[in-house]
């Protein structure tokens, strides 16, 4: 008797979890699409969905983290462009070896994020403005460096990062999944990352309790930058080029996915797996769009509507009882 009661309680608790809701929703969408078109559940299509969502996913992880901190980062797309161009230019010119170029690229992305964090924390300026400025700056930097030309002629060993496969799964997909698992674990268990929750929920209280808010904020934005850098490496490698227009609007998609996944703008909330499912859901829906030959003009409308619906459901979930 009590057993069934408890288990039903468990079920209802589980149903209230954002991740479970999203998983169910995703399954429903998959069912609908796979019923409407036979081409959805094919190996190569799933592979392309997985590959297509990789960049958004990696960026969205960093975005989730800064959302938990109570901030946001609009500069990730420009960060991708600049990091990618610096990395590929270094390789193309043969200035340094591939691993060193990647190392420099990742450091650049990390530093861009850290600059965001330092300006935000040091001068107490709204992250929206700071990252908006950085968005312009980094994109401008990418354009100045290339004048709009593609950076091509990259070494074969670099291209393997994006194109290699392990058991038929593209390497970036595996890497992204690993990053999700590791980052989720660290966020939940590593104290330096975990402190994003109290800091985001109420930074002033956190400071009173002796948490170094500045450090947490700077680290958070730097990490977000680093994730953008990782996405940039995969993007450049997979597409075999660096390009100043890479990553346009990715910040908006990443924000959307993180919010769908349960992160809020007031900070203190957000889940890595929720974000994962958010990105997955958007990727599947956009894939379904093409598979079903829906008019390309409707795609934006649907994406915007999904975002609004997501907020509606997310808020019900988090509202004070």
């Amino acid at each position, binding site marked *: 008797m009590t057993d069934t009661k408890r288990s039903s309680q468990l079920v209802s608790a589980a149903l209230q979890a954002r991740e479970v809701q999203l998983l169910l929703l995703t399954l429903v969408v998959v069912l609908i699409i796979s019923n409407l078109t036979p081409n959805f559940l094919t190996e190569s299509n799933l592979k392309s969905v997985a590959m297509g969502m990789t960049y958004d996913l990696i960026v969205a992880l960093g975005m989730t983290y800064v959302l938990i901190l109570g901030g946001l980062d609009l500069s990730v797309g420009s960060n991708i462009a600049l990091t990618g161009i610096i990395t590929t230019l270094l390789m193309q010119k043969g200035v340094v070896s591939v691993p060193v170029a990647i190392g420099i690229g990742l450091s650049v992305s990390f530093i861009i994020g850290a600059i965001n964090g330092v300006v935000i924390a040091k001068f107490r300026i709204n992250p929206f403005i700071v990252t908006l400025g950085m968005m312009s700056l980094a994109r401008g930097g990418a354009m100045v460096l290339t004048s709009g030309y593609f950076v091509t002629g990259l070494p074969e060993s670099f291209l393997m990062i994006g194109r290699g496969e392990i058991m038929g799964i593209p390497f970036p997909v595996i890497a992204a999944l690993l990053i999700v698992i590791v980052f989720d674990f660290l966020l*939940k*268990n*590593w*104290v*330096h990352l*975990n*402190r994003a*929750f*109290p800091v985001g*929920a*109420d930074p002033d*209280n*956190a*400071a*009173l*309790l*002796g*948490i*170094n808010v500045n450090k947490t904020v700077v680290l958070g934005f730097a990490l977000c930058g680093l994730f953008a850098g990782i996405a940039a490496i995969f993007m450049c490698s997979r597409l075999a080029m660096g390009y100043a227009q890479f990553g346009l609007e990715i910040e908006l998609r990443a924000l959307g996915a993180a919010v769908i996944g349960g992160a809020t703008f007031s900070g*203190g*909330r957000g889940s890595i797996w929720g974000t994962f499912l958010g990105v997955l859901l958007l990727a599947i829906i956009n894939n379904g769009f093409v598979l079903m030959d829906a008019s390309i003009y409707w795609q934006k409308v649907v994406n915007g509507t999904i975002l609004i619906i997501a907020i509606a459901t997310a808020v019900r979930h*988090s509202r*004070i*009882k």
Partner: protein
Amino acid sequence: MNSSENHDQKRKPILSIRGGSKRFGGIQALDDINLDIYGNEILALLGDNGAGKSTLIKALSGAHTLDEGEILFEGKKVNISKPEDAHNLGIKTVYQDLALFGILDVTTNLFAGSEYTRWGFLQKKKMGKEAQTVLSHLKTTIKSLHQEVRSLSGGQQHSVAIGRGVFIGHEPKLIIMDEPTAGLGVKQSREVLRLLKELGQKFAVIFITHNLEYASEVAQRAVVLCSGRVAGVLDMAEANHNQIVSLMMGVDQVVGESV
């Protein structure tokens, strides 16, 4: 002559402020503050609004730094420039607004800033167990440690804040309670006072309040602040309400011998 002097002779103060001053723009919030607090005593910190009480405790808890003056802790000069410093010394503060994270769960709230870690990793099981012990120690019933704190009752929230302030993290040596009875009903206030007395037997406690009855009930001594200065130090056993009120209001009157 009186009990507080006996105290003095028995041992050294755990914390002393010498010549503490603090300005905000044009306002002298603290002006040449000198005070001592001893172990195993409850010191009531009294004063009207704006008298400098919260500036003083913020200086002790690391939220502000003094412009001038020094703080001696266990006889040694210490520098409290950020909350961490205070935590490390064992100065624990329970803030008036509780400083809880509404949307986070009970355990996270209890351990925020003083998490148990091994190699930087959270020891969640250990924290969960500890949380249970602390809460049962405070005689609080909270259904689940995974509840969001904002869904708890006012009394429960108080317990979480006190539990965090007192029992979690570094061994407390000096506990600062900022208006712990504010916003509580009579029954819950009594509960807090009982807890205060209990704590006072083990640690030094600074108890900030407006309520003179509560102060005289639990505190051995009281420091009265007025316009950023120490208006008087009283022995609660001998002081009467009128004396205290006139000190608080800054009415010039020589009271007691312990000034």
